[in-house]
């Protein structure tokens, strides 16, 4: 045993060095494309084609100015950005409000139909959104909800509802009852208890729900593609998808595409920098149990 020690320690050290090397290599693989994205957005088109790997020095902000003016596409990217902010903000507010109400009722109420409602959410959770695409397109057309951000907010909030409600219910099930019962004795209505007692102390859970949902709402493309055909109503992912990759080298401006992509990514990256712990925790809790 004693004689085996030094060689196994040496083996372990080399092993660790190899592992560290591989990990650092993987860091480069994961991070470099993102760095490349931002670097390229700061270069002129000739620079992008001739020196793709070079550091953008001095940085050129021409691409950003061009997409803000929007001369080539007749539409400033600012509109897309504002649309995305409105849709994401509106969806989160509606989704959190509706799902916390429902989650609370499912956690606390025992009423005729409560078990069936719970089942309804579980069934809805398993529905792939693809099956809704064609009917939603025509339904929204009839209702005048195409090219309408409110329509998009209602739809996105619905798509997020099953998952968020089920998680909110689990949260409320484990929420201590004592506080609520005291407020009930003081003559508060059910809604009063929910609004004044339960919600204020549930900010953490609400924040987690917002964190779980913000990414997919900001990035949603599938429904946006068919529901938003007017340029003024479009969100950022549509601006990115509108560029044809095949013609990039010849016709369209590559630099501008990279500026748009950077503007689409930047809010999520900032958000990740600030809330990384909560994000990873929330996603883990949401994924598997």
């Amino acid at each position, binding site marked *: 045993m004693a004689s085996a020690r030094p060689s196994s320690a040496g083996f372990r050290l080399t092993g660790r060095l190899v592992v*560290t090397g591989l990990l650092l290599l993987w860091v480069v693989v994961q991070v470099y*494309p993102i760095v490349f*994205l931002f670097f390229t957005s700061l270069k002129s088109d000739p620079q992008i084609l001739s020196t*793709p*790997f070079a550091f953008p020095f001095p940085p050129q902000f021409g691409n950003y100015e061009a997409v803000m003016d929007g001369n080539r596409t007749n539409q400033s990217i600012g509109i897309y950005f504002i649309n995305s902010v409105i849709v994401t903000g509106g969806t989160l507010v509606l989704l959190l409000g509706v*799902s916390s*109400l*429902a989650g*609370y009722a*499912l956690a606390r109420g025992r*009423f*005729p139909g409560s078990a069936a*409602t719970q089942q*309804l*959410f*579980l069934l*809805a959770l*398993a*529905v*792939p959104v*693809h*099956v*809704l*695409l*064609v*009917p939603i397109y025509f*339904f929204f057309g009839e209702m005048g909800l195409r090219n309408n951000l409110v329509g998009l907010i*209602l739809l996105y909030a*619905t798509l997020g*509802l099953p998952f968020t409600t*089920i*998680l909110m219910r689990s949260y409320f*099930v*484990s929420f*201590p009852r004592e506080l609520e*019962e005291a407020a009930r004795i003081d003559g508060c209505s*059910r*809604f009063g208890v929910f609004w004044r007692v339960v919600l204020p102390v549930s900010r953490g859970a609400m924040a987690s729900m917002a964190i779980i949902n913000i*990414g997919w709402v900001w*990035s949603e*493309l*599938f429904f946006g593609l068919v529901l938003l055909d007017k340029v003024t109503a479009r969100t*950022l*992912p549509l601006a*990115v*998808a509108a560029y044809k*990759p095949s013609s*990039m*080298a010849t016709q369209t401006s*590559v630099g501008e595409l990279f500026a748009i992509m950077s503007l*689409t*990514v930047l809010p999520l*990256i900032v*958000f990740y920098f600030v809330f*990384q712990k909560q994000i*990873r925790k929330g996603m883990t*809790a949401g*994924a*598997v*149990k």
Partner: protein
Amino acid sequence: MTSPTPSAASPRVRPTQVEHRSVGGLAQIRANAHWYLFIAPAVILLLAFMGFPLYRSLELSLFEWKGLLPRHWIGLENFERLFRDKYFWRALGHTIVFAVSATAGTVGLGLLLAIAISRHVPFHRFYRFAFYLPVMLPMTVVAALWARIYEPNYGLLNTALKSIGLGVLAQPWLGSLDLSLPAIIVVCIWQYAGFPMIVLLAAIEGIPEDLHHAATLDGAGELQRMRYLVVPMIWPVLVSISVVQVIFSLKVFDLVWVMTKGGPAESSAVLGTYLYRKAFEQQEYGYASAVAVSMFAVIFTVTYVYYRLTKIDAVEF
């Protein structure tokens, strides 16, 4: 937030509601009127924007309908046509290949990364941050970025290959019949390996440190400790995250749509893009609905069975 809860006692025990004696159905409903108001907004949204479209989709799949022309009821003919449609089968095959390889890739790589950075190796916080970063990016941007990296003439990948003297390996990646689908799968793995990693890392860190020590004292090497301690301990999580990844990747659309639109010559078409093209490029709404309904049948069954087995509605956090 994720701490185990003291009041995890069965929610069925409801001592405070004994006052509401069950006199009759209607009285019961009236006594609980407030609860119906609580769930009403959610149920209304679900019925209007999910239940109703789902019903319409099932209905539409039984019609022949090309946009503005009148609809014809044709029973199951769309499904018969689907059965004979080789492009549908090809799209289904691509979807399954995509789901299986993307799951094997993300979970396999995620497991290796999680093991490598568990137990607080130096820089573990930095690794964790870097490896999860791509997961945060919108898939549309990732797809558009990689389309540029794969671009045959000026793309980063071919430029890099040429500059290190491996120009022979340069390929028209997304423009190739054989490579378009694998190239997209690689991007999916690049973006999402960090997700299983984070989940598995949490599971590994849940293993009591004593067990690692005991294994090491018993003379187990690193590899043996992984094989006989870590993997068995996290097996349920490994299975769960794999199913989650399969379900997630069966729904793939954004990546394929932005990078190739299913091309060239349908060589990377998946069910999502096939459905989209049938409906919104060829205006075959009835037939597209049949595609959608078949997709629904597969994904819904897998997902629902999985959720029932894992009792997702009983999750505590």
